[in-house]
């Protein structure tokens, strides 16, 4: 299973497609869900605090507006996890939109910088294009490794567990 970054990062259709092919979509909905369901001081409706734009400084400098950095505080960690990406250019608003084009520019750049397998497609204008669009995405998702990554992931989890155990031993 690959962790697939989707653009637009809140596209339900793309997230659904990625899931159907057995991969994990890296969508902003999950980040927001985590924000609003975590019981803490910044629980809903106050789910983004002034701390978030500061977290966003990891991805954009202080002269970048707080709206970009606040969004990047949610999206940036997803990009860090990215193993593959699907970027849809020129989508209509109801296909998905985070509202701020500066954030769009930055997140696409950061994804491309990672040099992971990336599919860039243009949003279809006709029915025929739509079929081609879905076919391309499906083919791309099919091409991504599934089992191998599962093993890798398990190994990763085991490693984390080992590290934790080691840490506990040291503390004792």
């Amino acid at each position, binding site marked *: 299973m690959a962790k697939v970054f989707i653009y637009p990062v809140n596209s339900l259709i793309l997230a659904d497609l990625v899931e159907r092919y057995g991969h994990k979509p890296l969508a902003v909905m999950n980040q927001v869900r985590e924000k609003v369901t975590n019981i803490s001081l910044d629980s809903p409706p*106050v789910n983004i605090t002034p701390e978030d*734009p500061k977290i966003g400084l990891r991805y954009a400098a202080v002269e970048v507006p707080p*709206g970009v950095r*606040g969004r990047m505080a949610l999206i940036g960690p997803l990009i860090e996890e990215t193993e593959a990406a699907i970027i849809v250019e020129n989508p209509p608003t109801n296909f998905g939109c985070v509202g701020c084009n500066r954030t769009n520019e930055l997140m696409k750049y950061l994804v491309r910088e990672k040099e992971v397998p990336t599919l860039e497609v243009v949003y279809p204008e006709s029915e025929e294009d739509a079929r081609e669009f879905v076919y391309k995405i499906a083919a791309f998702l099919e091409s991504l490794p599934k089992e191998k990554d599962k093993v890798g992931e398990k190994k990763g989890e085991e490693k984390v567990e080992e590290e934790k155990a080691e840490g506990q031993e040291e503390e004792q």
Partner: protein
Amino acid sequence: MSAEEAGIVKIALVSCGSEYSGVQPEFEEAAARVNAKFVFPEIDIASIDNIGKEFGLEVASGDLRLMMARAKAVVEGITHVDGVFITTCFRCAEGAIVRNEVRRYIHKHSNIPVISYSFTERTSAGTLLTRLEALTTVARRRHLLAREVQTGLTAGIDSGSTTTKAVVMKDNRIIGTGWVPTIKVLESAEEAYSRALKEAGVSREEVQALGTTGYGRFLIGKHFNAQLIQEEITVNSKGAVYLADRQKGPATVIDIGGMDNKAISVEDGIPGMFTMGGICAGASGRFFEMISKRLGVEITELGALAVKGMQEKVTMNSYCIVFGIQSLVNSLAKGSAPEDVAAAACYSVVEQIFEQQLQEVDVKEPLILVGGSSLIEGVPKALEELLKIKVLVPRNSHLIGAVGAALLASGYVEE
């Protein structure tokens, strides 16, 4: 209970996504403190793709197009609101363009009061309070703002950041004034008020109604049991058109205070659009105080000195008070004449107000300049040079807040 029944003012929040900037709780808190609530005008999501063409301003960011769609919903009455708060991220050029055009669009096509603001993640409820208080006052208390004549025996105290002013008025005349530096808010207010009462020859008990304004308005209002505690935007615009005798029709009020400045677009004495603040205290009375001190003159002498000088001879940038003083020191070190430096300081302050504030309101004549800095003769002169229009400085322009408060407080005499 509906919002209308509860007297809650409904403000449309037209923003580029302030909820992502961590400031939304501050917005909500400021609104709650003035018994207002934000509403989000409903729009058809599909309209976002075409609104740019329809509006005539095509931008890439979806939330900025959402702002246009929401403004349209307000103007067309799809969403009924009492006021509009337009806000975008500070330092975003695309956001600033849309913010300004959306503000102009609402102002042109409706009578709904509008304010605009650019926020950072450090914007606090306190910063927004005065602005939202003014917005809700215009929406909620139009009848009070319609008052054009002071009646009875009333008083007004303006507790400003630098000076505290008090006036006592009787039957539409100022009969006593007090003007003292603000040191301790309450003590300064007591002193200014006592001086005004003494000059008027009346006792506190005789005063039928009192109004307070300025930064210390809540504290002194509570202390003196004021009938009216009101922010300075509405009070000052009222005071300005009253003192300048321009109560009917359009006017633009510029108030250069000790700590900030305000530009207010007024129609029949009621503020329509207004902005408050500046990048730095460089565009305020504080800058003049520092300049006077460095030039070794009293602040009351700075204006006369500036009128004799030529600002073109000195380059001064008061965008930041520190850099402004640096320019001053450099120019004096190069041998510039004090009068040229004083003139440059006046021009620099006015230039910042022009660049920062006057872009946010439509300048309509007459332009009334008020606040302590209006007494520095070089300031109205520089403003006239910059805007190429006549600037009115009414008599007692430094007492604007106190006069406005006394005038509006007289509404409580009859009540």
